[in-house]
């Protein structure tokens, strides 16, 4: 079993492996982490079978290491990812992600009358509840919840 997985996504020497990404959120995770702007080698797998998720995605980023606060940004769409830090083909550290108390830029405010949707103003939210996630706009004070959450970009 393990060997077959290796065929799908090959191992990296140094870098970061992000596993258990819900397959439908893979592209939003790429966007949030700004991976379309970096030149490192990245391998993706998606629609893989998973025990916990319906279909999962995985990505291996060679030579890329994230600050925890940057990783935490993906918790909005992929709260259950497992992050492994790889040094010399070995997992040297395991991380999980947590939605930060203050969320900047990545989410669009649900309120069309909000200043962030009317002028070039970066969005800013305070976390209200984690499960299910709801966040309050710093500007218009409206709540954006999991159902209405729209990711804008990596910024």
């Amino acid at each position, binding site marked *: 079993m393990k060997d077959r997985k290796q065929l799908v996504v090959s191992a990296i020497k140094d870098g970061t492996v992000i596993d258990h990404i819900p397959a439908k959120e893979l592209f939003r995770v790429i966007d949030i982490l700004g991976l379309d702007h970096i030149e490192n080698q990245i391998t993706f797998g998606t629609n893989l079978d998973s025990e916990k998720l319906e279909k999962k995605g995985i990505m291996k980023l060679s030579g890329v290491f994230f600050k925890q606060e940057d990783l935490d940004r993906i918790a909005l769409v992929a709260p259950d990812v497992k992050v492994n830090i790889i040094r010399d083909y070995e997992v040297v550290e395991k991380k999980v992600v947590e939605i930060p108390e203050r969320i900047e830029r990545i989410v669009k*405010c649900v*309120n069309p*009358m*909000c*200043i*962030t949707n*009317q*002028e*070039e*103003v970066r969005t800013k939210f305070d976390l209200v509840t984690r499960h299910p996630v709801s966040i309050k*706009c*710093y*500007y*218009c*004070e*409206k*709540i954006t919840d999991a159902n209405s959450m729209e990711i804008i970009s990596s910024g």
Partner: protein
Amino acid sequence: MVGKSLVSIDDYSKEDYLKILELSAKYEKNPKQNILQGYVIATLFFEPSTRTRLSFESAVNQLGGRIIGFSDSGTTSASKGETLSDAIRIVSNYSDLIVMRHPVEGSARWASEMATVPIINAGDGANQHPTQTLLDMYSIKKTQGTLEGLEIFMVGDLKYGRTVHSLLMAMSKFKTTFHFISPDELKMPDEYKQHLDALGLKYHEHKDFTDIIAEADILYMTRVQKERFSDPIEYERVKNVYILKNEMLENTKKNLKVLHPLPRVNEITVDVDENKKAYYFTQARNGVYARQAIITSILGLNK
């Protein structure tokens, strides 16, 4: 408070509210002073609201301050595509404090980040209008002698009415019992009821108020607007239920006062105006004193 913007009613603590109300009473006793001499206050009304603007300008003028500003964005650079942040940065250079009203929600908070002088939010769309709340509280304190433990009845559009939401948030710090009287479509949103639940405060919901206002200390009326209804037939059915008529005040408490943020359309019949319990015109006058207290507190002029 000194040097800080007032954007949302939550920007102030219970102690801040009480300090403003105490100062409002001082300014009511002595509204004409020269305390703002040499100060320039900008009033930027990106949407017209004559009543609110006049109240602020009267407050400043009576204290000897100068006003610059505009009252309709049609006459300003905003209509030429200048951003709000540019306008605010520029006006910051010309004034000691900016009072602004803008139709976009969150615009005042954004302006407070861009400005180098304090901002007072005089209404940002459906979001916040904190000086209205403070003048409402001043009116309540003045007529009831206290803010603690009152029975406040809110009538009309409780879903979209920003004044009732802000008043609820502020008065929830004073052990208030709330009564919400509204049509089904315009009920008080859950988030406010949850807020009261979390504080252990009591509230009651009703669909009409003919027989239940005997207990009220404050009757806070708002307008039920046709455009808020998805079903026009439903509007026609309920539109007369939320109108206060003079005879309804007959068996109410002596200390009851009827408040309304104004402008009124038909939700309070004119025969109520002569009743001693009608307080909405005095409430509007109180707005001048409350705004004097707020402006001078932010400028640090109250020794």
